[in-house]
């Protein structure tokens, strides 16, 4: 059977995922047991959450590299307000608003001023992280309410509660991307913004709200992160944007926009998590872990494009409209 390119890529990731799991179960001590699986799932929560909205934004041919810094800023705000004695139930929505504001800044700079999101979000990556340090300095706020820190690490059987959260939000994101008019519009504008605009798609509005959604999701991830480690610090999640982008690209989303599925991204999040977990259990040095993540990232950008190069050499059988 001939598979669509997207399906073919997803199948490849699935095969890799199963392969790595089998290999780790057989060859790595301590991998194949309930508590490790539970920890593995828990450990991918923040990356999975941020990868959901990152998928939408990369399909729309933009990128948000500031997510991990938004997470850090939200953590810092949480720590500062907790120290100031505010109730945690009030702090949490404030953090989500901080995330929304960060996303709105990105969205404004990209859609209203027409700046490239790569440059904008590299800038805000530094900006938000810097702001986090301004707010909280280098202190760690650790005396967080046990009710919430407990919740963040609780599980139903081997299934962490946070994984349920990821599953619910993933279902929402998948429906938005694959089964709504907005999702159709995101694919169209990611592939050809001008044609989408000519068809009445509100290009700027959609992109703006995608950046806001990215910010809110990063703030939500910050809550999970903070409670999970029971520690609010300005440097929480430093460098996570690399893992998020790696998961999205490895999941088959085209860096040029217009292609990708949420299922592929979720499998890639798991694949990266499993590889990481197995290598840690096998006592591989941290530097090697980063090397492997980087390798998978480059491979995931390279592989689909190798396909494209090959396609370009085998011309389409239908005569085009005299295009060169």
């Amino acid at each position: 059977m001939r598979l669509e390119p997207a399906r073919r890529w997803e199948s490849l990731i699935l095969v890799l995922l199963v392969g790595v799991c089998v290999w780790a179960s057989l060859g790595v001590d301590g991998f194949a047991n309930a508590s490790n699986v539970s920890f593995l799932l828990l450990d991918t929560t923040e990356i999975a959450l941020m990868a959901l909205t990152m998928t939408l934004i990369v399909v729309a041919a933009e990128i948000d590299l500031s997510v991990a810094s938004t997470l850090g800023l939200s953590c810092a705000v949480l720590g500062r307000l907790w120290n100031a004695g505010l109730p945690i139930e009030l702090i949490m929505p404030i953090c989500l608003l901080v995330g929304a504001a960060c996303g709105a800044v990105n969205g404004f700079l990209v859609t209203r001023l027409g700046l490239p999101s790569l440059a904008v979000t590299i800038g805000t990556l530094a900006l938000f992280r810097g702001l986090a340090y301004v707010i909280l300095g280098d202190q760690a706020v650790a005396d967080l309410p046990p009710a919430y820190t407990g919740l963040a690490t609780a599980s139903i059987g081997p299934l962490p509660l946070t994984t349920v959260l990821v599953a619910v939000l993933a279902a929402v994101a998948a429906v938005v991307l694959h089964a709504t008019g907005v999702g159709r519009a995101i694919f169209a504008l990611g592939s050809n913004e001008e044609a989408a605009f000519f068809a009445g798609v509100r290009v700027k509005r959609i992109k703006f709200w995608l950046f806001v959604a990215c910010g809110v999701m990063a703030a939500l991830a910050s809550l999970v992160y903070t409670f999970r480690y029971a520690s609010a610090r300005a440097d929480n999640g430093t460098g996570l944007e690399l893992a998020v982008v790696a998961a999205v690209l490895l999941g088959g989303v085209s860096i040029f926009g217009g292609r990708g599925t949420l299922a592929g991204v979720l499998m890639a999040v798991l694949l990266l998590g499993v590889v990481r977990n197995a290598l840690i259990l096998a006592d591989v040095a941290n530097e090697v872990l980063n090397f492997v993540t980087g390798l998978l990232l480059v491979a995931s950008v390279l592989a689909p494009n190798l396909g494209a190069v090959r396609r370009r050499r085998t011309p389409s059988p239908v005569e085009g409209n005299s295009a060169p």
Partner: protein
Amino acid sequence: MDLTPVLSLSQVSKAFGAVRAVREVSLDLYPGEVHALAGENGAGKSTLVKILSGVHRPDTGRILLDGEPVEFAGPADAQQAGVAVIYQEPTLFPDLSVMENIFMGRQPRSRFGIDRRAMREAASALFTRLGVRLDPDQPARGLSIADQQLVEIAKALSRQARVLVMDEPTAALSGNEVARLFGVAKTLREQGCALLFISHRLEEMFELCTRVTTLRDGGHVATDLIADITPDDLVRRMVGRELDALFPKQETDAGEVALKVGRLTREGVFTDVSFEVRRGEIVALAGLVGAGRSEVARAIFGIDRWDAGSVEVGGRRLRPASPTAAMAAGLALVPEDRRQQGLVMDLSIERNIGLAGPAAVRRGPLVSRAAERSRAADWAVRLRLKYARLADPVDVLSGGNQQKVVLAKWLARGPSVLIVDEPTRGIDVGTKAEVHRLLSELAGSGVAVLMISSELPEVLGMADRVLVMHEGRLVAELPRAQATEETVMAAATGRSAA
């Protein structure tokens, strides 16, 4: 002609999988002739050009250069043999100057590196030989398409090209630019070049060419002396059947005003444009390229802002600069640039048809895939779209079928006002007649149609009224009875019309 052809194709065939794109086609190109290659989209013209230019190797058959068999392993071999292709839209290096583009990789050298003076002189000499004026030092960025083509031609000459293939060079040119290109082509012909000329405009072939080879479904139909045949003969050879009259506009009674444009102005682009289009009418907007016609259409549809004036659809004023508002009011725009503005080339046929109106296929907030597909299938049948699967990207369709997808996208919304900008540019005669019939039927069913077209026969055949623009202003409004080539061209070129 008792000369040896510079280049011959002898019984060449080329298949891609099961599709036989070219079947046993022979073609002789003699020095000093302009040879037309005619055929509908999908007839095999592009494949033949790619064989000539070394992009494809024929499966069977031979290529003869000066009567000797040769093999082109790649485009470099074809170039070496003196074959050059000028495409519809050349790809120059935008940040390099004209002369640097011409001599890319073969710059004249002095002891100290590149000899810019020699390069400039050589470029000027080439332009003199072509009889055109272009500044060798000008950067390629900002050159018109017509000028870019001239740079490509100069580049070809500098490589001693003896066979020049022009693949639809005139599709994006204005009348003056076409005339200048033809001047260049005639100069080259007199200097002994062989030219292969591809165009969808029959009148151009009859003006410029000496012989014409017609392809149909990949096969060779006939090679005729232009002097021996009529345009009707040629159309018959291309489509293999009799066409109805090319422009079948039915007489209809105009209804109430559907679109009213009042003193619309966009500074520096168009000024004080006022007109009305009634239900059931086809109104043509004629004029030279650059007169501001497409810009008026873009402003009406909300793509660009306007500075003054108003647009009313069905009696209600339109919010400026919002395509969404224009669509909600019942407007639809089939834009000029099909590949860039009309379609998302990577997306499937069904997704493109659904793009402008997911509302019709929604169930609550969700899109129903089944409804999306059945609506696309429905429109594909109604417009006689030729496709393999609705899930295929529109990229694989021929130009005419792509245009049908754009039309389907808008017609599925049931618009009250349809603006079409160059609706038949670059599409084959058969599909062209279908598009004309469709527009006529739409008008018959009460849609107000505003048609921008640079093809006078189309304007005169289709329109109930002809509006003519010149340098950003509406200069004439001609009822069908008064619209002739002379009156329209007089107005379009700024000579007073009536």
